[in-house]
C-alpha cells in the first residue's frame, strides 16, 4: 500500500495525482534534422567521388544556395505570413557586401561573412518596419519596389559595385587555411552553408518564436492578448530571414568569384517565392527540395529549357490548387506525434 511512485521526468503533478506527459516531448523533434543531415552527407559523398565535371559542380553549388534562401524565406513568408517578394535582394546585398569587403577592403572571409549578414539584416529590419505598416498584397508591391531599387542601385553605383558589367576579380578566399579554389571546395562550402541555414531556420521555427510568428500571422488580436508583440515579431522575422539570405549571398561570392546585378533582379526574387509556394511555405524540406531541385533541373534538362516558364507555371497552378490559393494565408498544423 501507499507505494508512492517515484516521480519520473515528464510527470506533471496535479491535485488528482500525476499526469504523464512524456508523449508530448517531441515538439523539438530532431528526426527532420537527422534525415536532412543524412541526405546532405549522401549527396556530398556521391558528388565528391563522382562528379568531376566542373559545370555540374557549379550548378549544384548554386542549387544549394538557392535552396538555402528558399528555406530561410519560410521564416518571413511561411511563418510570419509576410508576402515577401524580395528575398533575392537580400541575397544580392549579402553577395555584394562580401565582394566589396573582400576585394576592395581586403578583409578575411569571416569578417566579410559577418559584414554580409549585417548589411542584409539591416535592410531586412527596415523592410520589417514596412511590413508592420503594409499587409499582404500591399507589402508585396513594396517588396517588388525594394527589389527594383536594389538592382538599380547595384547598376548605378559603379564606384562601389563596378556597375552593370558585374563584379570581376574577386580573389580566392582562405578559410583557416582552406582555399576555396576548386569546384569541389565550392560545393562543400555551399553544403556547409546550406546546413547552417537549415538548422538555424529549423530551430527558430520550432521554438516559441515560430509559434509567435504563426500567432501573429493567423490572428493578431489573439497574439497580442497572450503577450506577443506584433511589431517586434514581424521586424525580427524579416531581419532573420534576410540575415540568412545575406549569409548565403556571401557564400555565392566566394564560390563563384563573379557576380552581376542581374543575378539579383526581380526574376530571382519572384522565383524564390514561387519555389517556396511550390515546396510549401512552412515546410523546410519542401522549400529546400523545390528551391534546389528546380534550379538544378533548369540548368540540366536542356530539352525543357524553352518551356521552363510554362512548366513552372503549371507546377505553381498545381501547388496553388493543392494548398487552396496563393493569397490564402499559409496555414500550418503542428501536432505532437501519434496524433490522428
Amino acid at each position, binding site marked *: 500500500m501507499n507505494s508512492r511512485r517515484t516521480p519520473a521526468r515528464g510527470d*506533471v503533478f496535479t491535485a488528482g495525482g500525476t499526469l504523464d506527459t512524456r508523449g508530448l516531448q517531441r515538439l*523539438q523533434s530532431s528526426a527532420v534534422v537527422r534525415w536532412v543531415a543524412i541526405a546532405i552527407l549522401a549527396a556530398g559523398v556521391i558528388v565528391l567521388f563522382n562528379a568531376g565535371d566542373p559545370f555540374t559542380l557549379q550548378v549544384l553549388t548554386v542549387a544549394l544556395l538557392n535552396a538555402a534562401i528558399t528555406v530561410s524565406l519560410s521564416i518571413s513568408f511561411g511563418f510570419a505570413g509576410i508576402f515577401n517578394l524580395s528575398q533575392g535582394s537580400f541575397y544580392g546585398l549579402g553577395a555584394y557586401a562580401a565582394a566589396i569587403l573582400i576585394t576592395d577592403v581586403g578583409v578575411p572571409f569571416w569578417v566579410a561573412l559577418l559584414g554580409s549578414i549585417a548589411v542584409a539584416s539591416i535592410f531586412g529590419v527596415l523592410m520589417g518596419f514596412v511590413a508592420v505598416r503594409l499587409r499582404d498584397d500591399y507589402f508585396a508591391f513594396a517588396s517588388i519596389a525594394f527589389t527594383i531599387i536594389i538592382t538599380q542601385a547595384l547598376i548605378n553605383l559603379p564606384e562601389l559595385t563596378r556597375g552593370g558589367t558585374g563584379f570581376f576579380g574577386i580573389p580566392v578566399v582562405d578559410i583557416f587555411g582552406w582555399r576555396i579554389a576548386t569546384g569541389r571546395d565550392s560545393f562543400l562550402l555551399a553544403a556547409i552553408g546550406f546546413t547552417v541555414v537549415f538548422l538555424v531556420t529549423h530551430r527558430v521555427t520550432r*521554438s516559441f518564436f515560430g509559434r509567435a510568428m504563426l500567432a501573429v500571422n493567423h490572428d493578431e488580436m489573439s497574439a497580442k492578448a497572450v503577450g506577443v508583440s506584433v511589431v517586434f515579431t514581424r521586424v525580427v522575422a524579416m531581419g532573420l530571414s534576410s540575415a540568412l539570405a545575406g549569409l548565403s549571398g556571401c557564400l555565392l561570392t566566394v564560390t563563384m568569384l563573379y557576380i552581376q546585378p542581374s543575378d539579383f533582379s526581380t526574376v530571382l526574387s519572384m522565383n524564390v517565392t514561387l519555389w517556396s509556394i511550390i515546396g510549401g511555405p512552412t515546410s523546410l524540406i519542401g522549400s529546400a527540395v523545390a528551391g534546389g531541385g528546380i534550379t538544378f533541373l533548369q540548368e540540366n534538362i536542356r530539352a525543357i529549357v524553352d518551356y521552363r516558364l510554362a512548366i513552372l507555371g503549371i507546377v505553381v497552378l498545381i501547388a496553388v490548387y493543392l494548398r487552396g490559393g496563393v493569397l490564402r494565408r499559409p496555414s500550418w498544423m503542428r501536432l505532437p506525434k501519434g496524433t*490522428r
Partner: protein
Amino acid sequence: MAIEAEQVGVRFGGVHALDDVSLTVSPGDVLGVIGPNGSGKTTLLNCLSGFYRPSTGSISIDGTGTAGASPAQFRARGVVRTFQNLRVYDELSVLENVLLGMHHELSGGSLMSWRWVAQSLGLPRARARQREAEEHSAVALERVGLSHRIRHRTGDLSYGEKKRLEIARATVGDFRYLLLDEPTAGLSPNEAATLLDAAMEVAGSRPDTALVLIEHRLEIVVSLSSRMVLFDSGRLVIEGAPADVARDPELIRVYTGGDDA
C-alpha cells in the same frame, strides 16, 4: 496592488463608448460587469487589457501608470483576457494553443534578451524550459477538463471546448488579473457551468488574483461575483454588492429602457 481606472473615457468619433468611468479591481475581487449591449462593457475590458487607449483619464496597474503601454506590456504586468468571439488557433494543436499563453515566460519578458536568443535557437537550457512550459500547459488543460484533447487539432474541438481552451491559454502563465468577456455566450447551461467552475477554480479561489467577468445571465453573476457594476451608455451606473445591484430599480430601468419602469 490593483488595476485602477480613473475617469476613463473612450470616444469613437462622436460616440462616447465610455464616459468618466472610475473603478478599482483588487486581488481577491470577482467583479461582475453587467449592462445591455453597447453599454461599454467590452470597451472597458479592452482598456483594462491595453487594446484601447483611453481618450481621457488613465489606467494604472499596481500603482504605476500605463500610458503608451501595448497589450503585450499589459500581459507582462499580469493582465490576461479572453475574447467575446472565439480567438483560438484552429490550425494549431490544443497543446500549442496553450503554449502560446506561456510566450511571456518563454521569451524572458523583454523583447530581445539572452533568454530570447537561447530559447529560439533551442540551446540546452532552453529545452528544459520548453519542457517545463509543456508541463504547465498540461496542468492548465487538466484544470479545464481538456487533458484528453491535448494532442488534437484545435479545429476539431467543439465550441464549448474551444471556450475552455481559451481560458486555459489565458491562465497557463503567471497572471494576476483575468478578464473574461462573456465566457458563457453561446454555451448550454451545462457547458456554461463547467466553464465558470473552471474559471473560478483558477482565479476566483486565489487571494492573489482578481477576476473581471462580463456576463449577461444575471443569476450567474450574482452568485459568482463579490462586487458588481452596472453599465449603461458608457457610464458606470451603480456599483455595489451583487444582491443589492440585482434589486436596484435602476437595473430594470436600464434593461427595459423605460423611464417610467
